[in-house]
């Protein structure tokens, strides 16, 4: 008995010793900055304010939440997140199904499809900015030659189109990630089940609906969770392609956070923006995880 307790204790110490470095790192680079940011939201850290350094309580939260700007930023962020996640997941699934088939050259295709994902966002943003350029962009040349437009259009200068253009640029880069995930899942499907279904007279659509789709649902969920979180935090592509313009048409929560901190020196306001964004992402993740768990139980 004592021997067992002793062993248990020594194992515990051993385990603590092993995880201690990661605890230190997590505390140092995640928890501590989060707490510091929380302090920023309650103490006036807006460097140009006449009340700098004073305790402000939740007044910055109130200010941001009641501002018209926040609502618009949130709407644009949601629009970007939902549409691009939808495109990436849908397109990713379609491409994965195609690449899951056996045909000559499929190996090379599978390799090529990963290239956009391997390109750094900075390069991707600059690349698409050139492609969409209103004066010499390839996109304009393509559409003009195809007879779809009469003259070169200003894709990133039109508030109705700019966000859509960023969605295209981002989806081009990130769809391959969905493809890889789906492809990996598809490779794991037991071929015998399909064979049995075929023998039972199920057509390709029924097989896809009743066999493939349920099987891919957990993967789809993972992709959706990951991408939603990432997209809510997206900043670089907006910074590179439009800087929030034209007329704020692409100003998202993250871009506002950046503007408040690094242009306006309103660190408290920026901290509030950052916290609210994190909060929304946390809630979304929680919902997804719940859904996933329920799905697993039902399945």
């Amino acid at each position, binding site marked *: 008995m004592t021997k067992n307790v002793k062993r248990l204790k020594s194992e515990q110490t051993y385990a603590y010793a*092993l995880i*201690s470095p990661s605890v230190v790192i997590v505390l140092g680079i995640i928890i501590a900055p989060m707490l510091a940011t929380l302090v920023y939201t309650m103490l006036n850290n807006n*460097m140009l304010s006449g009340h700098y350094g004073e305790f402000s309580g939740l007044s910055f939260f109130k200010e941001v939440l009641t501002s018209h700007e926040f609502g618009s930023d949130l709407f644009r962020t949601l629009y970007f997140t939902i549409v691009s996640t939808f495109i990436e997941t849908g397109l990713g699934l379609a491409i994965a199904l195609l690449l899951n088939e056996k045909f000559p050259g499929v190996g090379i295709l599978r390799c090529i499809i990963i290239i956009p994902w391997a390109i750094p966002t900075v390069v991707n943003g600059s690349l698409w900015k050139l492609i969409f350029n209103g*004066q010499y962009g390839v996109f304009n040349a393509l559409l003009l030659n195809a007879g779809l437009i009469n003259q070169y259009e200003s894709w990133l200068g039109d508030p109705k189109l700019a966000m859509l253009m960023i969605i295209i640029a981002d989806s081009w880069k990130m769809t391959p990630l969905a493809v890889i995930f789906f492809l990996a899942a598809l490779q794991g499907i037991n071929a015998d089940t399909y064979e049995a279904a075929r023998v039972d007279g199920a057509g390709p659509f029924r097989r896809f609906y009743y066999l493939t789709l349920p099987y891919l649902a957990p993967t789809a969920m993972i992709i959706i969770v990951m991408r939603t979180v990432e997209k809510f935090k997206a900043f670089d592509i907006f910074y590179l392609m*439009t800087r929030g313009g034209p*007329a704020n048409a692409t100003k998202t929560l993250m871009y506002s956070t950046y503007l408040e901190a690094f*242009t306006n020196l309103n660190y408290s306001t920026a901290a509030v923006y950052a916290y609210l964004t994190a909060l929304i992402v946390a809630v979304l993740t929680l919902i997804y995880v719940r859904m996933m768990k329920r799905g697993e139980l039902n399945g």
Partner: protein
Amino acid sequence: MKKLLSILLVLVLVFSFAACGSTSTETDSDSVELNALFMKQAGYSEEDVTAMTEAFTEETGIKVNLNFVAYEELEAKILTSAETGGYDVILGDCIWPAQFAKAGLVLDVTDRVKELDTDDIFEGAMQSCSYEGKYYGLPWLNDVKYMFVNKAMLEKAGITELPATWDELRADAKILKDKGIVEYPMVGCWSQAECLICDYTCIAGGFGGDFVDADNNPTMNSPENIAALQMMSDMLNEGLVNPKSLEMIEDDVLSTFAAGNAAFAINWTYQYNSMNDEAASSVVGDGVIMPIPGTDKAKSATVNGGMPLMITKGSAHPDEAWQYMTYISSKEVQAKYSANALPMWKSLYTEDSVIEAAGKEVVEASLVQYDYIKNRPMVPYYNELSTFMQTAIQKVLLGQDTAEAALNAIQDKALELAAK
């Protein structure tokens, strides 16, 4: 044994992390080393700054580490390093000293500036370094915007005189468009960026408008400012201004002009050299530089785009930093490198070497244009106001709002920010 080994490994890992944090930053006590932050584009080239700095090191023995970043990255770099003195000397835009001073990010250099021959420095440049009667920087890069005109296009349309007023320019633009010489006669950098405010400052100034009065009180919705914005919007609607201007910054304006797709463009001095560079331009010799047109209320107006050097609050070597700043902004150095940026010293404009290096036409245009310089509001809240203005003005240009309503909103915002 295994356990012991893994615990040891963990300890090694922890210590190596700790070691990462204490990378030595000590400098040799005998030689001072400065870190300086500069901008990549426009004005003095990277080679120019490097050469100036090498000469300084040779003369004084003070080593200076140079860092060049794009204009867009400058501010964030400064903000994140000023407190700790990551950079001793920083190059900033003329709209920042007020903000930096109020936020306590840069050193007050009033006493040091007094030792210089400030009467020989252009007033607008000195003003842009001051906030509430004190100096927080030393002017260095001297620049204003000009009007660039493709004279060959005008001649083709039978226009012999360069436009002196906005009415004349608009009439000329209409002729050029009607005759099919150029589809969109004028181009501007009107994207949601600071360059939009620079262009608007020039145009509003030409209409006799100001953004603030003598006491720094906002006057954004003055009739002159409304008229200027209205004209910008009208010219866009009439197809006299390239609609893609709404996504352009200065380099796009330059490339449009250099490709022969515009007859009129407002831009900084650097366009002069680039539009006459055979490797990058198809309009070599066709373009002229001239003062920006005005109206009956103001002969001309341009925007101060100077960039001062400042010493960060955290700098450990403010004396050496000042020594370096005064060296690279001295008359001798500015005269030597005047091909890419005009000097800030008035007395240099009569020197033959400067006229030859910068170009006679540029010096002549600058001497007229310097009499009509407008500073953007030198108030701490300028950046926030500018961000708001960019959006509001773009809404007018996109037809989403009227000039009057937008400028009323900007005025309200300015009053709100001033009261904060």
